[in-house]
Structure formats: structure tokens, C-alpha cells
């Protein structure tokens, strides 16, 4: 069980390397993605753009579930999961928002346009950044509660955002799966491999970040315990070592 993390880390790395090769076609082995006819090699950004987007959605969904669980159960584990998925989700969302314009510039000739998909992604990003800002800025013991409430608010907002920009002129491609668009099966294959690799990667980061979070909480607990009890289990003086009291009281 202790080995699980390093083993998973190695596997994920290998998978990422393989997926990278398949996407960018560096070494020609069977199954690499073909070059797109009209867009050329720029299109290969697709294999990062789309898996990042899907991973983002996944992470934010987990965040919502964890937040709701925290609100009901007040389980610190759920809160830790929410912190972690919130942070990693914002990172992946940022990847989408960066790769999108990089792709858009050569293909559409502009960096940005106010289209449904783009705008809703931006709004999602904004909501979760404000979530992280709240977590950072609030130092009361009730931060998890406030943050969880905000996550629920954000989740309520997303469908409304989608609804409200629903009939903007759209420039962005339709969904690959279930959206009626057709795609070369080789491309689809590579896309799915990349998605798997990205999901594993995201899970890996979340896992290590989660361990860090647990550690942080344990340290805080330990320090509190230390401030509770002096050397031989006797109550320490009010100030502890960090906070000397006025002389008269010692």
C-alpha cells in the first residue's frame, strides 16, 4: 500500500510520455495521430486542449460533491478533497484557457471571441478562482463552511451561465462525442489515450496535494497539542514559547 503512490506515479509518467508521442507523432509507431488536412500541425494542440477541458469538468464535479458532503457531514476529509480538486481544477482550466487562444489565433485569426464555450469556460474559471481567493483570505475556523457554500453557489450558477450565453453566435467546434461531429477514428483513439493520461496525471497531482494537505493539518494539530501540554504533560504557561507574557505574570 505504501508503494502505491510511487508505482502509480511511474505508470502515469509512462502513459503521459506515450500519449505525448501519439499526439505529436515524434516517433512513428502504430496509432500516432495523423496530421489534420486544413489546419496542419496546429491541430495537435487538440490533444491537450480537449482532455484538459474534460479533466477540468471532472475535478470541479468532484469538488462540488466533496463540498456538499462537507456541508452535510462536516467531514474534514471531504474538505481536504474539495481544496485539492479546486486548486488542481483551476490549473487545468487555465490550460484550456491558454491552449484555446493559442489555437484560435492561427485558425480563427483572433485570440478571443465571446462564444458560448469560451465564455462559459472563462466564467467557470472566474468562479473557481474566487473560490480559491476566499479560501486564502479567510482565516477563521469556519473557512471550509464558507468555501463549501461558495462552491454550491458556483454550481448553481454554471447552468445559468450556459443558459444565458446559449444563443451567442458560436464559432467553437461542436462536441466530438455525441455532438454529431465526425472525427477520424485514429484521432479519436489518440484523444482518448490522452484523456486517460491527463486524468491519471490529475489524479496523481491531487493525490500528492492531498497528502500535503493531510500533513499540514496534522502539523497544525500537533502544534496545538504542543501548546496544550508542556514537557511532562503539565499545562504550559499561557504564552508558550512563542508568546511571552508580560513579565509580571511569569
Amino acid at each position, binding site marked *: 500500500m505504501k508503494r502505491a503512490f510511487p508505482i502509480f506515479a511511474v505508470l502515469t509518467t509512462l502513459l503521459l510520455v506515450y500519449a505525448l508521442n501519439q499526439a505529436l507523432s515524434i516517433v512513428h509507431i502504430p496509432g500516432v495521430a495523423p496530421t489534420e488536412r486544413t489546419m496542419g500541425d496546429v491541430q495537435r494542440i487538440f490533444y491537450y486542449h480537449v482532455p484538459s477541458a474534460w479533466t477540468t469538468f471532472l475535478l470541479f464535479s468532484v469538488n462540488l460533491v466533496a463540498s456538499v458532503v462537507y456541508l452535510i457531514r462536516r467531514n474534514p476529509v471531504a474538505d481536504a478533497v474539495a481544496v485539492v480538486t479546486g486548486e488542481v481544477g483551476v490549473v487545468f482550466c487555465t490550460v484550456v484557457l491558454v491552449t484555446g487562444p493559442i489555437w484560435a489565433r492561427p485558425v480563427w485569426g483572433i485570440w478571443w471571441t465571446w462564444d458560448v464555450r469560451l465564455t462559459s469556460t472563462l466564467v467557470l474559471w*472566474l468562479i473557481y478562482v*474566487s473560490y480559491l481567493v*476566499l479560501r486564502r*483570505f479567510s482565516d477563521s475556523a469556519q473557512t471550509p463552511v464558507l468555501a463549501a*457554500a461558495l462552491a454550491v453557489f*458556483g454550481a448553481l*450558477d454554471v447552468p445559468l451561465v450556459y*443558459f444565458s450565453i446559449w444563443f451567442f453566435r458560436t464559432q467553437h467546434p461542436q462536441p466530438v462525442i455525441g455532438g454529431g461531429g465526425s472525427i477520424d477514428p485514429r484521432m479519436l483513439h489518440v484523444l482518448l489515450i490522452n484523456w486517460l493520461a491527463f486524468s491519471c496525471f490529475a489524479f496523481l497531482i491531487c493525490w500528492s496535494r492531498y497528502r500535503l494537505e493531510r500533513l499540514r493539518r496534522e502539523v497544525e494539530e500537533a502544534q496545538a497539542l504542543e501548546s496544550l501540554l508542556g514537557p511532562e504533560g503539565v499545562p504550559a504557561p499561557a504564552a508558550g514559547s512563542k508568546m511571552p507574557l508580560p513579565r509580571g505574570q511569569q
Partner: protein
Amino acid sequence: MNSLWSIALATLAKDIRLEWRSKDALNSMLFFSLLVVVIFSFSFDPLAEESRHIVGGLIWVAFLFAAVVALNQTWARELRNQVLDAYRVSPAPANALFLAKALGNFIFVSALEALMTPLFVIFYNLRVLGPAWQLLPIVILGTWALVVNGTFFAAMSLRTRSREIMLPLLLFPISIPAVLGMVNATTSILTGEASAHFWLVLLLTYDVVFTTACLGFFGLVLHAE
């Protein structure tokens, strides 16, 4: 339920009385919202025909900013002398306080809007080409949308450092659909080019969803330390 409303009204009455007594919030708000209107009207030719397309946005941005400044002051009075603690130790329901504050802000922001709108109309020589009566529900729904979440997030930002800046940070992202709804509905009616129906439904949905959510969560926020 009965006590909810009776306490909410008592709180609202108290706030209005105090506001009236000092009038300072009103003065400063008036100052800045007038300034916004004037800046806008100097910034672009109000007589141009295309002004009709932009004025919906202008009005709502002005309202939004006025609202944020007002909302930031919502809880200031309760924090002085920690009166909020007196509320928290009382059996009064948390939601009564929320309703009172939200209604108070609604009245306050509506008053500002009532002052600013004629200015816009005068400066921009507005004639409404669509069904003008629909502007009223739009303003009411839009203002409530701003105010209900604003009150909630203002309470939330009490529990944080650098309070004043936190409010817009929390409020703006969540308000985007509402802002879109208000601006587009207003523009549709001013230009008469499209129906505002869709946007009205959107605003109504937004209001219902978030009023429920705020009432559901306010207790948590109030009793957070």
C-alpha cells in the same frame, strides 16, 4: 414564519431609521453615482443613434458599481460594538436578518436607480422603442439579483481579511448571468429589436435560485466565527 417576518421588518425599520438619521451613506452614494452618469455622458456623444445600443450596458454598470459600494456598508453598522453578537445570541432566526438587510439594500439601490435613471434619460435623450412597461420588471428583478447575492457575499466577506475588496471578487463571477440578462433585456426593449422575454425568464430563474440558496446558507455564514 410569522416571527421571521416580524423580526425582519423590525430590523429593516431600524436600519432605515438609522440611515435616515445619518444620511451619510446616501450622500456619498449620490455623489459617486452622479459622477458615473456624468462621466458616461461626457465620454461619448449622447446624440449618436448608436447610443441606444450601449445605454443598457451603461445603466447597469452604473447600478452595479453603486450597488457594490452600498453593499459594502451593509454590515458595517452591525460590526461596530459587535452588535452582531447580540443578534447571534438571540433566538431570532438568521434569515430574518438576511431578509432585512437584503430588503434594505434593495430599497437603497432602488432609490439610487430612481435618481440616476432620469439623468440617463435626459442626457441620452432616450425614447424607448420597445414595450416600455417591461422595463419595470427588469429593473426589479435585476436589482434583486444584484442585491440578494451581494448581501450574502458581503456577510461572507465579513469573515475574511480585507473585506471591502472581497465583495466584488465573490459577487462578480456569480453575477455574470444576471448582468447579461439585465443588459440584454434592457437593450432589447430600448432598441425594440428583439423580445426581452427570454432574458426576463432568465432573471426570474436566477432570482428564485439564488434567493433560495442564500436563505439556505445564511445561517451558516452568520454563525461562522
